[in-house]
């Protein structure tokens, strides 16, 4: 009976081949899918079991993993949690990662492709894998100044180094403490999260880059002015600035802020129109330029592009295909134009940097645990939205705004500040958003900022960009310049 024995042993061999195949199927082929399954706590345990890298601001660790005695071997801790939360995000066993914890995860947990040499070293030495630390571009003083100045108002502030694009401050208020969500007791984490997500002031939303985008109001006039200058106008050209402007094709009358006249003559220079933030002048200018030119200019400043800094940024929006009335309103930053505070800061930054817009970024360097630099961000040009001469003229115009226009509250003694205010109608009977964007020193800019205070903040319906947002911008600029 050797023949059936041989045949049976072949059948047995095939049975084992099936086992080899089924093991491979689970351990290799299906492994990524199984590892990603939310019911697989191992992925969590493994992730939380790694010595995750720190987030570093100005040489100090603001987010660290502290060894603890529990199944999760490390506890994530955030110093100044609320201050940096819009950047750090949180790291939760229940809700996953947000912010930099998510965007820089591969560096922090050491799985990034660029860290392969490091992993090989750990594999050989048998040491516990350790994540890399990520050094941020933030300036703690700027961050603190913005956070303090915004206080308990809902709003956001962004500061950029216009020459590099490095983000110096990124604040969103009200904020939250990521430590509340970093615990390992899921019941506590869940209740903390429910409280935060149920809060009507939306503390978990990062207003600076990814909240509900805002109507920019008068700060958008910078783009309309830029489009006009690029179109061949100059700052001294006299344009119509009537008390009222009947929007084309409608009987709606557009007023200036407070119903006042922009000038006694009904005409003024482009520079003066920006200085007093004349609505009718820019609405007419917008209609003269036409939708396409303004849209093109907005796009050149970064509208329509969802940046990764590496946090995900909501794209700002300038709608096209509108009628003339809507174009007129869009030209003064109303109607359906929507921006993020980061986008507004980028407009100032481009003007400050002679018309060259640098790509904004948050990660300065990534260092392995043995302090070797793995990657370092090199400043990169995002676009060249305006010429140097346009930038120079706009700078002069913005200096005028702060010296004797709507932005006097942003004046700093000894420093020439260029700025633009905005007071954006929000509709549905709520107070206006107060905007201010600026850069300084005007002759050699080190910082460009954008500030928004939602619905006028504590000042409510009395608020204007110049009165509420400008002082905050000034505080941030002062913090950066006072070395």
């Amino acid at each position, binding site marked *: *009976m*050797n*023949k*059936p*024995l*041989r045949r*049976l*042993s072949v059948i*047995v*061999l095939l*049975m*084992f081949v*099936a*086992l*080899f195949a*089924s*093991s*491979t*199927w*689970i*351990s*290799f082929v*299906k*492994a*990524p*899918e*199984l*590892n990603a*399954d939310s*019911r*697989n*706590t*191992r*992925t969590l*345990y*493994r992730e939380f079991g790694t010595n995750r890298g720190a987030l570093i601001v100005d040489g100090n660790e603001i987010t660290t993993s502290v060894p603890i005695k529990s199944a999760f071997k490390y506890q994530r801790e955030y110093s100044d949690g609320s201050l940096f939360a819009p950047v750090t995000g949180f790291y939760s066993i229940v809700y996953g990662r947000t912010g930099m914890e998510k965007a820089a995860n591969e560096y922090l947990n050491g799985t990034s492709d660029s860290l392969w040499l490091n992993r090989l070293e750990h594999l050989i030495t048998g040491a516990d894998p350790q994540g890399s630390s990520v050094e941020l571009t933030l300036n703690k003083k700027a961050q603190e100044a913005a956070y303090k100045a915004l206080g308990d108002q809902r709003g956001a502030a962004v500061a950029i180094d216009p020459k590099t694009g490095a983000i110096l401050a990124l604040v969103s208020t009200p904020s939250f403490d990521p430590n509340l969500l970093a615990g390992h007791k899921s019941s506590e984490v869940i209740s903390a999260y429910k409280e935060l997500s149920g809060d009507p002031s939306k503390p978990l939303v990062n207003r600076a880059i990814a909240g509900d985008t805002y109507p920019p109001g008068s700060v958008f006039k910078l783009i309309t002015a830029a489009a006009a200058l690029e179109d061949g106008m100059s700052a001294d050209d006299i344009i119509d600035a009537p008390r009222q402007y009947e929007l084309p094709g409608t009987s709606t009358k557009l007023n200036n802020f407070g119903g006042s006249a922009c000038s006694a003559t009904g005409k003024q220079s482009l520079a003066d129109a920006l200085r007093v933030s004349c609505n009718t002048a820019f609405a007419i200018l917008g209609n003269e330029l036409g939708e396409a030119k303004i849209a093109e200019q907005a796009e050149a400043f970064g509208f329509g592009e969802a940046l990764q800094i590496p946090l995900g940024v909501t794209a700002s929006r300038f709608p096209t295909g509108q009628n003339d009335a809507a174009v007129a309103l869009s030209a003064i930053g109303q109607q359906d134009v929507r921006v993020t505070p980061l986008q507004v800061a980028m407009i100032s930054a481009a003007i400050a940097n002679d018309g060259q817009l640098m790509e904004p970024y948050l990660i300065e360097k990534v260092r392995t645990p043995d302090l070797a630099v793995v990657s370092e961000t090199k400043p990169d040009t995002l676009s060249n939205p305006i010429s140097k001469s346009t930038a120079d003229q706009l700078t002069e115009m913005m200096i005028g705004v702060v010296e004797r226009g709507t932005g006097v509250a942003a004046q700093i003694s000894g420093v020439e500040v260029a700025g633009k205010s905005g007071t954006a109608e929000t509709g549905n009977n709520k107070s206006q958003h107060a905007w201010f964007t600026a850069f300084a020193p005007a002759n050699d800019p080190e910082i460009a900022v954008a500030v928004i205070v939602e619905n006028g903040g504590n000042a409510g319906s009395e608020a204007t960009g110049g009165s509420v947002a400008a002082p905050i911008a000034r505080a941030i600029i002062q913090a950066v310049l006072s070395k």
Partner: protein
Amino acid sequence: MTKGSTPTVRTRRGSELLLILFALLVGMFAYANVGLAVNDSLPTNFYVLTVSMAVIAIVVHLIVRRFAPYADPLLIPIALFLNCIGLAMIYRIDLGSDTNLASKQLMWTAVGVAAACLVLFFIKDHRILRRYSYVSMIVGLLLAVSPLLPGIGHSMHGANIWIKLGPFSLQPAELSKIFLAIFFAAYLVDNRDRLAFGGPKFMGLHLPRMRDFGPIILVWIASLLILISQRDLGTSLLFFGLFVAMLYLATERTSWIVIGGLMFAAGVGLVVSKFAHVQQRFDGWLHAMDSDVYDRVGGSYQLVQGMFGMASGGLFGTGWGQGRPFVTFSYSDFIFPSLGEELGLVGLFAILTAYMLFVQRGFRIAISTRDGFGKLLAGGLAFVIAWQCFVVIGGVTRLIPLTGLTTPFLAYGGSSLLANWIIVGILLRISDNARRPVPLPLRGASTATPDESGPNLPVRRTSARAAVAAHSNASAKELDTAGHDWAVAQDAQHTQVVSREAIDFPTDVVRQLDAESAENQILDDSRDSSPLPPAITPDARRSAYPGQSSIIHTGAVPPPPLPDHNEEERP
């Protein structure tokens, strides 16, 4: 070896010892690694455990040297290797979950290995087992149904496959499979001709005659009853698979495999449609990832958690002590996924390869042994190990529905270890018989003297002495020194069988004689396993056959154990 002397068969005990040391070393490193990874120090009982394991291994090696010197050299090292890996994993899970199973498993390893030694010591010839065919059947069946007996039957984890004897919980199915294999082998060797008779031909298959369906239907019903009453597909699948495989081995009829497969599928289909608990198992298999099946009590949670473990291990595993193999029964039914998690796919391949080698050695033993009973038993036991691996590992890797069997040698469980080590013992015994060199001298070798055969082959010297004695027509009493070869001959039943076959197949004997020159050739060439039965060497046959009829009738002189069928492989 000069021409004219008896052929040398290497015992290969040296290779065995080396491989045993290797298996021990792997186990030792694994065990140390677990301790170092989890606690940064060697396990507290590191020396106790490794020394015990080494003692166990060396003892079994010495026993084999003494009682089965020609036994297959791979079986013990492979079994030890798997046993050691299993121990390390169980210890690793102990550390993670505050249990103390590893030391119990070590104790059971000792018991199992001792049982294998006892098998070698008491069973000098596997053919003795044939005498106990009906006893085996009764014991096997009693063991199989014992979990249902009130008093000792014990239901755990939704399956009635346990009995409780004092402090021990046993899975009697494990031991039962050995007894049933012995019974099947004895029964089939007696009835194979009848069962092999062709019936009608259907779609290219020779179907058996209707009246020969009796036994398979009986086993089928028994298996289904086990499935229904014990709520466990594993045991039922194990027994039925074993029977069908052995039926095929005995009859060479592929139709039996097809019929068996169809019958079992139909039976399971019937049971699944009627019994909710079996249906649940199928649901957990087919829809394992569905969240309602996953969350259900008795659903697929355990299976899926095991799969998560394997997936997180990936190709190379987390390393000993670095994973989280803590799903329920990660140390027994689910030890394979646990190992997959910490040793990765690479580790699983090593383990599967070890099983494959073990099973292939088993089949090799079956092929090289001479008697039909031995062939069936060795083939059946090799198959049952493979089949059990397939059913368990296939279950945890979602190839087939999950069942409640243990992975041989690896998994925690006393009955399983005991039974599988006994199988090792029996296979060792059969392989020793198969490989033991011819106790009678070959033609032209009668001048061989103990001195010529070399000083370092004591075993062969014994054989040579016996051979010389046989050649000179020594009495049966003297022949006893040849060892076990005559033991079976004292069994009247066997004598009868031999005589019947000798009469039924006279041409076979003639052909056998005609093939002698070719056989001699083989003997000279083949050092590893002699395909020749000891007592039908040309010389022996020449002396035995003339008086054969008287031998058979009187039984005074043991008859030569003839090859018991006509399809013995010939060169």
